[in-house]
């Protein structure tokens, strides 16, 4: 991996060595490395899945490579803004998460969701309701019964995140009562629910699946359209009478507005090829990230669905401006 970087460094060090490159979008796209901007620090879910994608994507690329670049800060906003302002030449891709949709609504960001063009989606993570192994709630029905009487403490990874909004949506649609206990990141949540310091936790499936397999937590219900093959015994939220058909966060690629169609098509196809690669599928499922693939058009629909869903919650609960 050091080869290209090394080369770049040498060139940069030797000021004035002329390299020929054409500024016009060329048919030989990609002729240089495509950077995937990860708006978080190395080691997290977005970073790691991006690196796995790059690893497998590079098998299908000839003259160039996918290179992951971390631009952390501001809960993702710094990197997202950086990508939105990048040159729309197809060589800067944002590792897009659901927060790109909600951030401009909730916070004063310099970008709007319309500043991005969705490329493709590679992972959909449905929200799950989780309790500790020692919890008295054996089924979702037990939990619903209690939550209707008095508020249950539920830990979420931050206020006004997709997970907090999922909880608010549950309150609205199923009449449950929750007291929110926000933590920074999923590690703190895990500690709280495993240690019995809170009664319930709301997680994206990918972050908790392996812990459920190990038996340290129980997944009671999943917010997917239908029962998932990897969780045959877990009812959906709809089946459990929670009146929410689907609540998922997603991961995908987006490029700055104005990126040429050819580049979007190329990258979208690339993700499509990767998503059927056996090694890639194994690695993602090993960790518990549900694999999905939507091309540019499908991804755009997912994004707008998600925007509608969250807009309702944000307006109703006055999350805006916080």
């Amino acid at each position, binding site marked *: 991996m050091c080869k290209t970087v090394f080369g*770049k460094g040498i060139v940069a060090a030797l000021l004035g060595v002329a390299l020929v*490159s054409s500024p016009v979008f060329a048919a030989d796209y990609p002729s240089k490395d495509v950077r995937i901007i990860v708006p978080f620090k190395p080691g997290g879910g977005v970073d790691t899945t991006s690196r796995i994608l790059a690893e497998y994507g590079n098998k299908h690329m000839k003259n160039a490579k996918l290179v992951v670049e971390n631009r952390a800060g501001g809960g993702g906003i710094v990197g997202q803004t950086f990508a939105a302002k990048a040159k729309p030449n197809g060589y800067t891709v944002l590792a897009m998460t659901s927060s790109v949709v909600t951030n401009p609504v909730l916070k004063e960001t310099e970008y709007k969701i319309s500043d991005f063009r969705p490329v493709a989606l590679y992972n959909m993570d449905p929200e799950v309701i989780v309790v500790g192994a020692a919890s008295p709630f054996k089924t979702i029905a037990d939990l619903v019964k209690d939550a209707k009487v008095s508020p249950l403490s539920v830990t979420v990874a931050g206020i006004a995140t997709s997970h907090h909004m999922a909880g608010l949506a549950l309150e609205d649609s199923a009449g449950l009562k929750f007291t929110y206990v926000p933590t920074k990141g999923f590690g703190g949540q895990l500690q709280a629910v495993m240690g019995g310091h809170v009664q319930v936790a709301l997680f994206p499936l990918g972050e908790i699946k392996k812990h459920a397999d190990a038996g340290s937590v129980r997944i009671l219900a999943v917010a997917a359209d239908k029962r998932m093959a990897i969780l045959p015994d877990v009812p959906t939220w709809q089946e459990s009478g929670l009146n929410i058909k689907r609540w998922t966060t997603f991961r995908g690629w987006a490029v700055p507005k104005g990126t040429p169609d050819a580049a979007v098509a190329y990258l979208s196809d690339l993700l499509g090829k990767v998503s059927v690669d056996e090694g890639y599928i194994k690695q993602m499922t090993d960790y518990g990230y549900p694999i999905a693939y939507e091309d540019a058009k499908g991804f755009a629909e997912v994004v707008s669905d998600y925007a509608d869903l969250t807009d309702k919650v944000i307006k109703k609960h006055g999350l805006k401006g916080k």
Partner: protein
Amino acid sequence: MHVVKRIDFWSGLGFLILGAWAFMTARGFDATSSTYPMFLAAILFGLAALLIVQSVRDPDAKTVHPESTRILLLGPGMRIVAWGGWAVALAAGGGYLLPSIVVFALIAAWVAPVRKDWRHLLVAVGLVLVVFFMFYVVFDVPLPIVDALQDLLD
């Protein structure tokens, strides 16, 4: 009775203003998140007032010395300004190498035994290149590069 020369008097005053400002700012936050910073700001204000009182009462309080103030401004003060200017140059798209070399050479020459010596520039170029190599190449850090050069690299 040179209260105005006493160091603690001035630092007390500084924290007093800071506490008052933080308190007023925190009042504008929403109800759940304002209590704690307001509480802290109030304590800071109180402690600062106490420090001022102590400094006024204490006859042996440490006072400001003109020569050490001069050293403070010429040494650390100039450094902060120089590196601050460097940060501005980096943010303004001046790249990494040139601003670093200029600032490094200036700073090294300023405290060197012999100031006017062209070798300072040579040393600066060498060391900046070493640091650049370490971060940009070995650690793969995307240091700022002048746009023109970046296009060239691409």
